[in-house]
């Protein structure tokens, strides 16, 4: 009779970063690694696996691996690929089974997933046609405001009166931000306006799926306190952030890998 593997690997090849996780049957994370995806999804996946090997000091060749994310088919070592919708859902459910809505805001896309009591997705919406409402949008705005992406959220929280930024199109919003700078608005107010506009965009996407509480937020943008604040306000809800919110998809993939029968 086939037995359950003792370990599982999840590789999430996102448009901006690639994440990999090695877990054991207890669900303990043995090793994890994150790297910029860059020009080759395949190479970034290989690099992640090499790092997991170094961190865990284990032979990974016999451990089942599931790939997910935009570049999921490029992970040659993966046993199979599963969409990021399912993997994020499974990943966040393992960390907090109460979560019913997951909002994942990554580098180049964002998604809202409604999660059933069994941890499987029941409905979802993706915004992946342009960079509006994604980490890339914030990166461009940080550049215009001459601050780092890490500090942009904190800057936004210092605002007294957020500037009005009406567009979430990265190209148009950049012009608007430049206009606000020209009008003499202070950087904190502009940063707040940028976050408010993006939060409104993600809230709309969330309402398309139908928001059910409690809500979790994952992806790189979940680390941004300014975005969390404005999105929480828009949705009138507290947002739960898991530990390592960028790894949720990889974690879900590792759990699925471990549940495959050998």
């Amino acid at each position: 009779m086939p037995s359950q593997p003792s370990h599982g690997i999840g590789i999430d090849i996102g448009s901006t970063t690639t994440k990999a996780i090695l877990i054991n049957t207890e669900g303990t994370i043995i090793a994890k690694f994150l790297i910029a995806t860059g020009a080759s999804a395949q190479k970034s996946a290989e690099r992640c696996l090499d790092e997991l090997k170094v961190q865990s000091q284990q032979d990974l060749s016999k451990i089942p691996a599931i790939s997910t994310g935009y570049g999921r088919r490029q992970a040659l070592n993966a046993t199979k690929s599963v969409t990021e919708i399912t993997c994020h859902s499974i990943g966040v459910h393992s960390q907090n089974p109460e979560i019913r809505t997951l909002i994942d805001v990554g580098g180049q896309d964002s998604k809202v997933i409604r999660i059933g009591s069994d941890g499987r997705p029941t409905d979802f919406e993706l915004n992946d046609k342009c960079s509006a409402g994604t980490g890339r949008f914030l990166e461009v705005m940080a550049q215009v405001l001459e601050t780092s992406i890490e500090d942009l959220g904190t800057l936004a929280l210092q605002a007294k009166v957020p500037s009005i930024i009406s567009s979430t199109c990265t190209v148009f919003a950049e012009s608007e931000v430049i206009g606000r700078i020209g009008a003499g608005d202070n950087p904190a107010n502009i940063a707040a306006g940028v976050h408010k506009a993006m939060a409104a965009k993600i809230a709309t996407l969330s309402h398309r799926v139908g928001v059910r509480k409690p809500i979790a937020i994952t992806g790189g943008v979940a680390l941004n306190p300014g975005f969390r604040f404005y999105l929480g306000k828009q949705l009138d809800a507290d947002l739960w952030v898991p530990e390592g919110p960028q790894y949720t998809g990889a974690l879900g993939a590792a759990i699925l890998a471990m549940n495959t029968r050998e």
Partner: protein
Amino acid sequence: MSPETSPAPSEEREKAYRKLYTSKLLRETMTLHILSTKTASQEGRLVWVTSGFPVEIPVAFNTVAAYPEQYGAIVGSEKCGPLLCGFAEELGFSQELCSYARSSIGSVQQPEQSPLTGLPKPQALLACNNICGTVLPWYEAVSEMTGAPVYLVDTPPLEGEQPPHHLAYVKSNLNGLIEFMSQTFNHEYDEKQLLQVAKLSNDAVNLWTKALEACKNKPSPLNCADRFISMAPIVSLRGTQQAINFYETFFAEVEERVKQGIGAIREERVRLLWDNIPPWFTIYDFFNTLAKQGVVFPADSYTHAWSAAIPRGEIIESIAKVYSNVYLNKGLSAKIDKMCSLIKDYDLDGFVLFSVRSCKRYSIGQMVTKEEITRRTGVPGVIIEGDMVDSQQYNEAQAKTRIEALIEMIV
């Protein structure tokens, strides 16, 4: 397996997906039809008609009908949508305009660079706005380029039952059409001939409907691409004996598949509903890739639109009724009702709504539709975005991720 014996990708696709032997007859039938449109054009009796046009009337006037929308499908399948659409855009037409309209106008502008050197020159352009409002300005643009006159059968949108004044208005439009045809083609109207054409039309529609309904069986004898390709005669040869000849053979093959338990795909695991026109430029790749994963589409909202027969009664009134009541001409609820009944009757596990950027009339309200269908039927669905002809507006990876996620929700 050695490299020499490795199957080519196309062979692999055929393994997951069973080809209909009727496809040879289909090719012959449509080739003959194309030739007949060329002859008709030379003889001065070719009309261009929209897909939802009451074609029985022009056929009863001994004219031959060519379908620019069907030509658009050919343009899409030949993967030259962006080129032909580009010709129309060079003339100043917006990229937001329907890609059937753009490719049609583009082919009139540059026939030598178009598949089949475009459709033969028409002597009249017959539009019915029961499928969308774009058809009139589109045909008017073609009219300016070709000199052929336009006649519009105006069927104002309906909600619920057709009121008497609506029916009377559409009837007056059809009587106007008869007058237009008599004058343009110098041919007298013969009601007997129209009754005969209507009978031929109904016979073909009945055979087509029976083939569609056979897909309630498990495994489904037809997949989406089978129906979309095989619908060509029911669109362009409705009202002719050729259509009946084709669908008799087609239905016999479908019946045989059902009898022997042969499915359209090798292993049927998930049964989905398809909504809207398909992405013609990737039709086989799209459905065959899913077929490899055990996904079959036993029903779709589009090909079922050609399954309404002309009811008994006074012929002009009957034609007015059937062509006014196509579900694209009715409120959103008519289409939702149709899709919910297809999901129930064909025992489907989920649905894919294709949001076609070109086809606003078909794609409008899909977000509400998705919620409502799931609420009523309990099955999940997904919206994918793109276009039927203009491949520049389609992102394969995004569409596939959505459908794969849907399958993961079902399996």
